């Protein structure tokens, strides 16, 4: 507890709404993300109902017109990526975990951190406000290709598209400020004794993700400013009749857009690593390999963006080049997954709810990963581009990232965040309900996509090849699975709220884990630790043979490895 705060009870506003405490900010990010997820879920419910039963009146919404369908798919994509995955994985877990896991009291720039959340909240408000302006919200897909997005004569949403763009730009500023904090804190505020390779993987991953984000977001912000000027001032940056170039936006967008995939993937991988090692009681297999693979993934991710534009009219020779780099990125990512699977070998696996989510992440993401090969290969992307095959592919990557990994993290750190355990039975019902319905929902979409079903189509009746009863049955199957999946999320919400008030009280380290956040009491007070921890070893010393306990916390004094000369666990490793 910092000196000026000691002995003073902050009021409600200062404690919960206007706090500089990283834990409060992290939870604010997470809860805002969860609230936005409800809007994202509602949009998908409406447009999937329209896809399954075109023309019928959707309960709670009414009849879906073409413009409604377009804005619903646009908002679903935007919200789920920028307002759910980003705040929960980066803003939420990043803010909550980094100072705790590094063993310090707060971020290095606490007020910048608060500003980051406030800007993010403002961006959410702007986005939600765009639902209520004349003309309706923006409906030009989350990629917002101009001239459609640049000119309201084409998009017919004069205010919606501007508010959408403004919201996205504000959101980027928020995460930029957050990223500065994450990186600086990790470099400068580690507990004494914590070397670079004693940092838990999840912190590494969030830091690398922030580096990727900050390296790639600039050009998109530049492009967004240009688009904003096109919309508001009437410049012609993307208007070909006035010397502009519409393809330029695609480059600027995807230059950010593809690293963004890894910005989200890496934190999810980090969360899964923490959960897996704890519940397999295993040291993480090849820690350094994971860090290096993540760095490699980050570097290569800057060379792949144009694979989103194979058929967009770019130079076909350039497309060949990007096809090669895209397949190369499968190498470090595959390496990470091999390492994760290898971590299970020789473990003592406990299938608790967080562990189930973590294992499901690996199992489900594998399918998302391998189907990406079809799209990275320029030759087959000609066919698959903008079909439901792509939709199914990226839901097999983003759903594990934004939801499965997030559920793993929430169920794992819930005792730390709120001081109470979550209910295991409800957790498992929620897990199985979500996983089964998720697969039933998206596997049919691979089939319809392969049959030529293209995206964002409000009504298939004009397409003889797509309007067949077989295709419609698959769509209806996917929609019903989606409805069931949404229904199962109620179980999670009930569990969350119930456990928040009535859950079994949690001790400081209920999972017998090694990392520093488990030293603090549950929930940790402002300032985090009663006495600041000192780090003696790496974060994954589970099942060390020479010890009675099968875990060995980082903060527990013991055989300290001196520089260069491995002792304690490291000598064991050499004997093995």
């Amino acid at each position: 507890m910092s000196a000026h705060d000691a002995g003073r009870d902050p009021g409600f506003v200062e404690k919960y709404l206007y706090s500089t405490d990283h834990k409060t900010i992290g939870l604010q990010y997470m809860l805002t993300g969860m609230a936005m997820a409800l809007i994202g879920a509602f949009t998908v419910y409406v447009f999937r109902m329209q896809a399954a039963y075109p023309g019928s009146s959707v309960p709670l919404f009414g009849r879906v017109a073409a413009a409604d369908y377009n804005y619903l798919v646009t908002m679903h994509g935007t919200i789920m990526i920028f307002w759910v995955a980003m705040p929960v994985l980066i803003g939420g877990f990043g803010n909550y975990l980094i100072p705790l896991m590094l063993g310090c009291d707060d971020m290095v720039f606490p007020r910048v951190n608060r500003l980051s959340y406030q800007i993010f909240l403002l961006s959410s408000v702007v986005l939600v406000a765009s639902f209520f302006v004349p003309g309706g919200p923006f409906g030009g897909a989350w990629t917002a290709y101009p001239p459609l997005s640049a000119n309201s004569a084409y998009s017919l949403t004069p205010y919606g598209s501007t508010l959408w763009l403004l919201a996205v730009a504000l959101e980027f500023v928020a995460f930029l400020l957050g990223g500065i904090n994450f990186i600086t804190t990790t470099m400068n505020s580690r507990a004494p004794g914590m070397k670079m390779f004693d940092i838990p993987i999840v912190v590494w991953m969030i830091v690398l993700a922030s580096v990727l984000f900050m390296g790639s977001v600039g050009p998109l912000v530049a492009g967004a400013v240009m688009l904003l000027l096109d919309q508001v001032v009437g410049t012609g940056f993307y208007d070909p009749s006035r010397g502009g170039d519409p393809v330029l936006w695609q480059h600027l967008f995807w230059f950010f857009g593809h690293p963004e995939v890894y910005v989200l993937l890496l934190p999810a991988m980090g969360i899964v690593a923490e959960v897996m090692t704890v519940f397999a009681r295993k040291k993480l297999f090849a820690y350094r390999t994971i860090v290096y693979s993540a760095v490699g993934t980050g570097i290569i991710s800057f060379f792949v963006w144009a694979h989103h534009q194979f058929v967009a009219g770019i130079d076909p020779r350039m497309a060949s080049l990007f096809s090669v780099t895209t397949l190369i990125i499968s190498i470090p990512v595959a390496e990470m997954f091999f390492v994760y699977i290898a971590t299970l070998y020789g473990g003592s696996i406990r299938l608790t709810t967080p562990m189930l989510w973590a294992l499901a992440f690996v199992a489900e993401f594998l399918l998302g990963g391998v189907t990406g090969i079809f799209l990275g290969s320029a030759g087959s992307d000609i066919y698959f581009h903008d079909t439901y095959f792509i939709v199914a592919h990226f839901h097999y990557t983003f759903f594990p990232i934004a939801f499965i990994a997030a559920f793993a993290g929430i169920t794992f750190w819930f005792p730390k965040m709120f001081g109470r355990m979550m209910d295991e039975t409800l957790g498992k019902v929620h897990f199985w309900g979500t996983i089964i319905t998720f697969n039933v929902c998206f596997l049919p979409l691979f089939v319809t996509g392969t049959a030529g079903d293209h995206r964002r189509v409000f009504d298939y009746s004009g397409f003889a090849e797509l309007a067949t009863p077989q295709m419609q049955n698959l769509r209806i199957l996917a929609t019903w699975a989606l409805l069931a999946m949404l229904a199962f999320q109620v179980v999670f919400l009930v569990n969350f709220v119930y456990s928040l008030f009535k859950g079994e009280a949690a001790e400081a380290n209920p999972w017998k884990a090694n990392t520093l956040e488990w030293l603090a009491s549950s929930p940790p007070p402002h300032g985090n630790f009663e006495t600041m921890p000192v780090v003696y070893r790496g974060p994954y010393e589970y099942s060390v043979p020479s010890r009675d306990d099968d875990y060995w916390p980082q903060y527990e004094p013991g055989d300290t490895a001196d520089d260069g000369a491995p002792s304690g666990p490291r000598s064991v490793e050499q004997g093995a």
Partner: protein
Amino acid sequence: MRVVVATAILGLAPRAALACSACALAGISDNAAAYVSMSLVLTALPLGMVLGVATWLYRNIRRADRHATGSISS
């Protein structure tokens, strides 16, 4: 072998590029060149900057670690 042949075709016969929008308009080959060169700049710049900052950090972290251990032994 096919890769070699393909690369050779791509390199030697740029005129065969048909779906190349950037080559289709008169005088627009400048545009294609600008796209390629600016892509290189945009890709190399963040990597270079990150590499620079990372090197600087790495040196300082090593010095800090050495300093720390040194002060203990003394």
